[in-house]
């Protein structure tokens, strides 16, 4: 490439880079700087002393934060696993040609298209202990055995996981469907001629060829699940007994409710670092798979 050409290309991507820096780079840097200070909005007399990594040290010794991290990991692992599984099944289903397929495809996407806050509000009503449809669905009129889903630590976490799976499985399905559609039909036809059954066609053709798409879905879902906030905020506000106090919600409360800007920023930056590490690992994996698939 000529030097002149490189300059031209750089000029072309400069606006995009500038926007990225302004709206993504700058806030990250600012959060990081804030996380190195003690800033409490209610106590401006403290000024904003530089404290180095003290906020991060406190964070590691904060049992509530450690608890939040643990339960966020549980949330991410369960939701991602089930979303990929259900997404795969949905994708296989809507990949087939049958009457009403387009309508079904549209339906599958509905949960994903609903704003999360609206969906969370809906699930809050569905999981209500006295008039919630879920209790009615399971126990009918036997109101004595109704479960107060959002009032028990275990079931409250379950409710949020359930709502997330309902909401985003279709997103995983969409990504996997894209992977399914690039598989050439000839492979299946040839396999059929060779007498391969449904299961072995899936094992030897579909599975290896959609793995890159699955990995992409895995990447998106893990990162997205780590940032869970709105479901917990609307459905339980982190309770009961902090059972749904996911890391993002903990950071939000520290910053905007308690006014601890420095400490809250340390929580945010920690989440950013975790997600960044995951993203780099995944992208390297996906990248390798893609190359292998092409070779």
């Amino acid at each position, binding site marked *: 490439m000529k030097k002149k050409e490189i300059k031209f290309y750089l000029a072309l991507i400069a606006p995009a880079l500038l926007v990225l820096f302004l709206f993504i780079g700058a806030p990250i840097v600012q959060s990081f700087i804030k996380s190195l200070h003690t800033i409490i909005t209610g*106590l401006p007399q*403290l000024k904003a002393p530089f404290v180095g990594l003290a906020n991060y040290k406190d964070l590691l010794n904060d049992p509530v934060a450690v608890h939040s991290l643990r339960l966020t990991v549980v949330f991410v692992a369960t939701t991602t696993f089930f979303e990929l599984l259900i997404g795969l099944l949905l994708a296989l289903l809507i990949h087939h040609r049958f009457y009403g397929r387009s309508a079904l495809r549209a339906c599958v996407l509905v949960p994903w298209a609903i704003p999360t806050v609206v969906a969370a509000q809906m699930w809050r009503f569905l999981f209500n202990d*006295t008039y919630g449809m879920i209790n009615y669905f399971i126990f009918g009129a036997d109101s004595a055995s109704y479960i*107060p889903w959002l*009032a028990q630590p275990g079931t409250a976490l379950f409710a949020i996981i359930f709502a997330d799976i309902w909401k985003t499985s279709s997103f995983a399905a969409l990504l996997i469907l894209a992977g399914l559609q690039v598989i050439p039909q000839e492979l299946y036809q040839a396999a059929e001629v060779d007498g391969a059954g449904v299961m072995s066609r899936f094992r030897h053709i579909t599975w290896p060829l959609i793995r890159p798409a699955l990995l992409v879905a895995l990447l998106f879902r893990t990162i997205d699940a780590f940032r869970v906030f709105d479901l917990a905020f609307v459905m*339980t*506000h982190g309770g009961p007994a902090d059972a749904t106090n996911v890391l993002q919600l903990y950071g939000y409360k520290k910053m905007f409710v308690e*006014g601890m800007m420095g400490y809250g920023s340390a929580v945010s930056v920690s989440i950013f670092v975790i997600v960044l590490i995951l993203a780099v690992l995944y992208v390297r994996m996906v990248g390798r798979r893609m190359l292998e698939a092409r070779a």
Partner: protein
Amino acid sequence: MKKAVIITTLSMLVSAVFIPCRPYPLNAQEPDTIVFLTWKPNQPEVWEKLIKEFHHDNPDLRVKVQVGPHSSTEYHAIVTQRLKNRDDSLDLFFMDVTWPPEFANAGWALDLTAWFSEREQQKFLPGPVAANSYEGGIYGVPCYLAAGLFYYRKDLLDKHEFRPPSTWDEMLFQGKRILEAEADPLLNIYSGQFKQYEGLVCDMMEFIWSNNGGVFDTGSGGVIINRAESVKAVTFVRDHIIGNAAPRGAISYEEPESLDLFIQGKSVFHRNWPYAWEVANNPEKSKIAGKVGVGRLPSFEGHESASTLGGWQFGINRWSRHHEKAWRFIKHMTSFKSQKILAVEASLAPARKAVYLDRELRAKRPNLTAFLPAFERARPRPLSPVYPMISQELQRFFSRAVSDKGSEIPQLADTAAKRIKKIRDLAESIRK
């Protein structure tokens, strides 16, 4: 020449269109605008009426109302963001009852001592005045107040010949009797707010105070949330209220859900704020309209009943350029006349004492006069510039204590006390 004619005609046309709309004489000066950030009230027409009256009495001033989020926590986030940035486009704001120390210490709210003199303060109920005071100054003027009230099914109590209970044990005893006799599997003894949010602090403090416990010792200022009195009250809630007198689901209830249980006739006793009175007696919404009694919350044997103080105050932005004008608006809104209109037409409990003696109010809103004993003794939550931090720790402690039947309450209380002490020490450190 032609140009001049066109301009003159145009300007005459423009003035013909716009000037008649102006409600003040042409020769008067342009009125100053003061900006008031509030939330959407339940009865906006009453507030509009008061603002219209203010405009009538003060032709040189215009009030511009900005509407923020209804949730107290979200409204707090917006107000504090604007004040922190020294936004001078905001003149007046509302403060929830726990905010004045924070706003005073941060230098956001103006000290109103010059206008809101001690003599004037004595005309208001003591609880809200205390809540607005910080280090010898006064930073807000109470607009209306609220306090935790005890609602009960008058019809059921009469039927079983009970008088409203004065202790928690008595409430449990009466409730059990009524439940046995009524044989209604859907009926509960009690409903309240036990979700992990600010309301949990309000409800739990009423139990703790009514056993002579507390968060801070009123004399020494030491942390006493882990003392026996406080721990006993919390243990009582875990063992006898949650999952017994109240359904387990109460751990997910805020005000609306718990009130719903009561007005559906599924609970004998109920703890809520004054607004619940109107809802419970509205036949369109409530199955128990006309069957509701209200009074002070029960206490533990040998101790005083206690209510948590709530309500909203006006504050003036320190960075505003219209301090005196903003004060004129506050003076108008907290005058006897306006307080009476808010009480009679919007059922908001006046902060000004004299309104409770008004004959028209007593006739039209007898409930507000009935609430007065609770209002007079309502207690503010801990007054501290870092109250939001303390509240988060309290919510954590209470929620963990009552959500699990096997919780180690003394240990949880010790942890909470340690963390609250650390927060308090941080707030104290600025005085050195």
